[in-house]
């Protein structure tokens, strides 16, 4: 077990280096970011040259990358063009996005799994068909449509919520954005749970448990659900990273100043330091979430062992 974790952690290193290098190259290919800093007018060459020197942009890309990685290990993520430390930007952006992600994941787990169990146990009934249609609709409608529609209806027409989230972004204001962010994944979780439950409901061990005379809720919770959740856990686990990185659209609609906002701003201003820094952290989140998912397997199903 311990060796398995160590091996997995070691595997992360090349993935991490590769991912950051790729992002670094991609952002750099877009050209000289200093050119956009002076607005619709050319920066005077002397100032431009000095800014370039200050941000290390005058060196070859490989050297920039090495310096960047070197600094990274000392916790220095560099400085954004507006003079703020990237770590400072992270400190303000990540807590907001993490809150948003938590809301979204909770929606997925609570609504998605519950709906999945109900429909899985009642295959072919109206509830099942109804849920299938709804999930189909949710999956096929793009997030920005759902977001703008909810914003317009709940925020402007009915006045139930504020259309935009304040800069502190407390949990209460993140409920609707969280739901919007979760919507597509939520539909997938429902369908995944439903299929898994429906399959396992016919399994021998469930029949045995029923035959033993166990109460129905115990059969469902301890036997059926536990075994059916493995694919769902995989999905939700990998979704954490996807939600955090993919929040750009939702954050933009509701004016949430989280990771998506910083990334968008960073890309627009071609700010290498911001983009690479944020993506690096997102890659880490992704990798760790994946590791957690794999370790959770053993909890859900003791038969799964890691050598």
């Amino acid at each position: 077990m311990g060796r398995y974790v160590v091996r997995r952690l070691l595997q992360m290193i090349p993935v991490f280096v590769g991912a950051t290098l790729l992002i670094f190259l991609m952002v750099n290919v877009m050209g000289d970011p200093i050119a956009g800093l002076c607005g619709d007018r050319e920066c005077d060459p002397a100032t431009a040259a000095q800014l370039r020197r200050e941000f290390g942009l005058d060196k070859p890309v490989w050297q920039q990358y090495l310096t960047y990685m070197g600094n990274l290990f000392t916790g220095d993520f560099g400085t954004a063009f507006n003079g703020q430390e990237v770590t400072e930007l992270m400190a303000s952006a990540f807590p907001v996005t993490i809150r948003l992600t938590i809301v979204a994941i909770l929606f997925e787990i609570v609504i998605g799994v519950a709906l999945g169990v109900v429909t899985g146990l009642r295959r072919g009934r109206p509830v099942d068909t109804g849920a299938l249609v709804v999930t189909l609709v949710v999956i096929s409608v793009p997030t920005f449509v759902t977001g703008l529609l909810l914003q317009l209806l709940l925020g402007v027409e009915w006045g139930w919520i504020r259309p935009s989230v304040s800069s502190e972004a407390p949990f209460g204001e993140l409920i609707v954005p969280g739901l919007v962010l979760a919507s597509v994944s939520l539909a997938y979780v429902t369908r995944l749970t439903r299929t898994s439950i429906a399959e396992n409901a016919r399994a021998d061990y469930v029949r045995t448990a029923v035959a033993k005379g166990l109460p129905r809720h115990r059969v469902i919770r301890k036997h059926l659900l536990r075994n059916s959740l493995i694919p769902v856990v995989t999905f939700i686990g990998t979704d954490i990273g996807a939600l955090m990185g993919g929040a750009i659209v939702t954050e933009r609609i509701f004016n949430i100043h989280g990771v998506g906002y910083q990334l968008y701003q960073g890309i627009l201003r071609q700010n290498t330091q911001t983009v690479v820094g944020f993506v690096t952290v997102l890659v880490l989140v992704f990798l760790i979430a994946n590791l957690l998912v794999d370790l959770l397997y053993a909890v859900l199903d003791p038969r799964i062992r890691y050598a």
Partner: protein
Amino acid sequence: MRGATHARWIAGAAAVALAVTACGGGGGDDDSGGSSGSGDSGGVLSSSWGDPQNPLEPANTNEVQGGKVLDMIFRGLKRYDPKTGEAKDMLAEKIETTDSQNFTITVKDGWTFSNGEKVTAKSFVDAWNYGASLKNNQKNAYFFEYIEGYDKTHPDDGSKQTADTLSGLKVVDDNTFTVKLTQKFSTFPDTLGYNAYAPLPQSFFTDHDAWLSKPVGNGPYAVDSYTKGSQLSVRKWDDYPGEDKAQNGGVDLKVYTDNNTAYTDLMAGNLDLVDDVPAAQLKNVKTDLGDRYINTPAGIIQTLSFPFYDEDWNKEGSEKVREGLSRAIDRDQITDTIFQKTRTPATDWTSPVLGEEGGYKKGLCGDACEYDADAAKKLIEEGGGLPGGQVKITYNADTGSHKQWVDAVCNSINNALDNDKACVGNPVGTFADYRNQITQRKMSGPFRAGWQMDYPLIQNFLQPLYYTNASSNDGKWSNAQFDKLVDQANAESDTAKAVETFQKAEEVVRDNMAAIPLWYQNGSAGYSARISDVSLNPFSVPVYDQIKVG
């Protein structure tokens, strides 16, 4: 079950580790946004804002969002009248010159910064020296380029600077300083209303970081709190000595990523003022807001520039091709349908906000700016046809919905020339890359150019854009006659004559069609019923201090 127990323990530890890494940077989260200030005399209004691109320093702020703040918390020697754009004395008691080259500036007594420090001649001289010094990386440094000694503090070739201060600036006494320019520049005093020339308190130099996190100025407002990237709150400064005291208790500037969200917030009653109505809402804005929608001219003109470094665009007869293209663009139709009349077809190369006395001359472009398909076809033929048989209009696709109008312009050209392939749009992903390609002279055809004036002078619409090697002469157009006229106009001490000479220079631009003028841009804003007396100045920035709440 041993394995499982272990797995549980490790999963738990990993979860803790995740939480720690994710929140690692959050130690110093002293976010105090939303504090509503203390002892307001009037109501506080909220307004949409965009995150400034550069640190908030007078000589380092070159875009509207940062400029908005500087305009609230700073007052300079001159101030542009919010209605007429005329440069009026603010902190300047008098600015005297006998030769348009040496100026003696007297600063009014009795002005202080909001921290109590006196505003003196030194406050200006120190600030200007800071702005001009290369080591401070100020993006507006070139505003000081006419002052003697600039080449020593800011060597253009990037070599080591040999002086930290401008030799052309001298403090005479507490309230007086002198400025020596390298050339005659009669309208120099009128440029001094620009933010880059604002005075700075000593705390700016002694504790720069603290100043940046909470700027201190001498304007009608003082910064109350600033959470970078999300909100800046200014409150009325009660001891402000100027005439233009704030009529409200303060302003909360809230950062919006998307102006559509800001507009939605205005509709829902969460925001008082939106100073950039999104294009998509222009159709409904009248019914949504009625009288609370403003659409007034601003000092912004949009043009199509040409790469004069490219042989194809700089040969005998090219000017006819350029004029032909200009005549193939149906400006009226495009401003009506795409911009819902928030732009006005351009008939010269300046802006109506200058007024006739300031140099705006309606119809200076003449026929060359009027849509006429037959004339367009003929002109282009006479000029040797389109280079390569096709023009590509380059623009950046990331902001400003440029795609829509470029496509419309191309449509118009294609229709006029009866050729589906005469014109195509050529989008570039980001603004930075777009600027990059311009700087590296990679343009192969006309490209989008926009000019927002720094100060309401005809000089500002011509010299930086068309003078040989000027800072914003992106097309690298060069014309000896134009340069000569501009020099003459600058040396002219009589303003009316200077304007007249500038207009002669503008005629040279016209005869060569150095750039195709497209339209003048309006400033647009919408506001809630809670506030009144809202107007936009010639820079399309709301005149915040005049707004009344309640």
